[in-house]
């Protein structure tokens, strides 16, 4: 009988103590957790309800989950709170913040907290592609939570109107361009495609380079490959979409308003985070599909999104409580619920065995696209000095796409500076 497990006995004991009440100080562990929301929507409610479920099961742990803006804001708030001595024991932060957090000596590795045999099995239960951004120096520092890939949303009605097969979206770059040409209306009322170039341009670019057979950095986060010929080629392709093929608008395409553009039918295809799926589903007034990104010839996408981290300053007790919370929130059942409510990937294969999600994916096949795409996924750009290195690449990309500069030149320049920045970490 599971009732007799030591954990439950302890819970019973705690419950009994609390029931006895007066005079006995309750040994409640308080956890503060910051988390970001990058795609908008009512995700805060989903987090709150998962946390409430956890508290119901674990009356001895009190969780304060604080919504902290986008990924950048969340990191700033969490680190500022730590510096000022405010207790935060765990947070969801950008998976690519790992090197900065290690350099700041802010986090502990999960290998040091999750020590039992059962814990070690748990660490292996996630999709390996989602673990890549969370592992370095031979240890695991981040546990996947709100993880995404880039997927291609496309307007099936527009495909039909242009004489394209709506069940057969483009699989290669050539097909992608060809479809784009058919979908672009000369009067400017509908574009073939939009790939956002503000917000997270390096992320979209990570997809293009992977599709072209090249990653952007090494696994230690100490070297970048911005001037690799395949990388230059990928940027040329991105630029050509608007300049040469004229199937995408010129200038920077705004990350934040792109979804609205798609929903209003101004673009027939868009590349965006799978985290938008549920919102698109709720608001699209037309028949839409979700496909893996095309390849050249191999498909490819970076993973993205937020991981759980545990802060070093917490007490041993708090760390264990934090681990318990993380385990709960990434458990197959909760991961399945989270995935259905948002569109983010269920973080473990077991999540896709949960009855509800199986049913959901059957009735709504796009829900499984991001998962199926994981086998083509690579890590998101992440290095030491990651903010600066990322900005170098972002600036180079925008200079080429919106500013008419030569892709090779700007990438050579970005590479030279990134090498300079990363020299001390070699």
């Amino acid at each position: 009988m599971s009732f007799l497990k030591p954990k439950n006995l302890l819970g019973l004991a705690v419950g009994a103590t609390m029931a006895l009440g007066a005079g006995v100080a309750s040994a409640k562990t308080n956890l503060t957790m910051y988390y970001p929301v990058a795609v908008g929507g009512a995700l805060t409610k989903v987090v709150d309800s998962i946390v409430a479920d956890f508290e119901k099961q674990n009356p001895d742990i009190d969780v304060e989950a604080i919504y902290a803006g986008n990924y950048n804001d969340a990191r700033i708030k969490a680190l500022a709170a730590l510096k000022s001595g405010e207790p935060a024991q765990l947070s969801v932060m950008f998976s690519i913040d790992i090197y900065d957090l290690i350099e700041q000596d802010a986090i502990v590795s999960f290998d040091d907290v999750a020590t039992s045999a059962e814990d070690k099995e748990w660490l292996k239960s996630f999709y390996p592609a989602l673990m890549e951004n969370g592992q370095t120096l031979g240890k695991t520092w981040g546990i996947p939570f709100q993880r995404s890939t880039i997927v291609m949303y496309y307007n099936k009605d527009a495909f039909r109107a242009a004489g394209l097969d709506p069940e057969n979206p483009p699989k290669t770059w050539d097909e992608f361009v060809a479809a784009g040409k058919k979908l672009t209306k000369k009067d400017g009322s509908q574009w073939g495609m939009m790939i956002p170039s503000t917000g997270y341009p390096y992320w979209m670019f990570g997809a293009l380079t992977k599709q072209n057979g090249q990653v952007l950095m090494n696994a230690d986060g100490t070297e970048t490959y911005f001037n690799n010929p395949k990388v230059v080629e990928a940027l040329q392709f991105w630029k050509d979409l608007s300049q040469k093929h004229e199937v995408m608008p010129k200038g920077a395409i705004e990350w934040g308003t792109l979804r609205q553009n798609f929903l209003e039918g101004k673009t027939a295809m868009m590349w965006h985070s799978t985290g938008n799926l549920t919102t698109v589903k709720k608001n699209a007034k037309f028949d839409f599909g979700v496909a893996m990104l095309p390849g050249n010839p191999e498909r490819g996408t970076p993973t993205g999104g937020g991981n759980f981290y545990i802060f070093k300053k917490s007490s041993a007790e708090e760390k264990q409580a934090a681990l318990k919370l993380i385990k709960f929130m990434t458990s197959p059942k909760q991961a399945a619920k989270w995935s259905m409510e948002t569109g983010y990937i269920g973080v473990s294969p077991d999540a896709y065995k949960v009855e509800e999600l199986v049913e959901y994916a059957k009735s709504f096949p796009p829900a499984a696209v991001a998962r199926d795409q994981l086998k083509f996924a690579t890590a998101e750009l992440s290095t030491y000095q990651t903010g600066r290195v990322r900005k170098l690449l972002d600036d180079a990309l925008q200079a080429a796409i919106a500013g008419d500069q030569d892709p090779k030149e700007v990438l050579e320049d970005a590479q030279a500076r990134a090498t300079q920045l990363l020299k001390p970490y070699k």
Partner: protein
Amino acid sequence: MRIFGNRHVLGWLLISPAVILLVTFTHYPSISSFISSLFSRGNPIRPAQFVGTDQYTAMMQDPVFWTVLENNMIYAAGTIPASIGLALLMAVLVDQMLPGRAFLRLAYFTPTILPMIAVANIWLFFYTPEIGLLDQVLRPLGIDTPNWLGDPDTALWAIIFITIWKEAGFFMIFYLAALQTQSPELKEAAKLEGASPFTFFWRITFPLLMPTTLFVLVNAVLNSFKLVDHIFILTKGGPNNASSLILYYIYETAFSFFDTPYAAALTIVLLAFLALLALIQFGVLEKRIHYR
């Protein structure tokens, strides 16, 4: 002697609230920024080291610094005269006896009372290509619109325009207040002498408004170096730093790159620059202003 001593103490006590506030929030942060700008970027593993003026040398070689500096100059030149001129024009207009005057005043002032972030979000959707208000109005007229915020040539100007729209109403209030204190006798006297409305404005109203103009000018200059909110929402400084300003770059350096010493060095340069501007404004302009 005792009385002198007491008065001394009393004097200090009287100014102490101001001194405490100034020292805590102005002098101490300035000095500590300066000190921190002389050190290298440290972390718990490698502590910061004294590097002298290295941060400043690096700044001179940082192309982004020069870009944001140039952008800020353009931004200042684009926003200050335009918003002050517009404010004056609007103030003169609503100072007259017009039907619906109160409504007009309110309309001009509304942009100022809206929260910055809300304003930026509204404008984001105005400027958005294809579905934005601007494109929906201009495109049917056959005007080929640029990608306002996505084109390096127009991004900064799009932000300048919002600032003018937002600031002019605020400055108008000061001009309006000043105009209403001007004695109507002046106008009657000018009429008797046969002065044209333009001469009256140029020779009498405008010179009398100079103290207000100085005040507004100081504020406008400060504001032109203080903008970050809009940039966050609208462009994040892009594309390729085309719309990034000094303060936004300082923010990025400190909180995105965690390079506090370099951010401190940038702050010191900004402070020195603003101090210089203040000296010019108060030193030169004030002598030419006629206070009653």
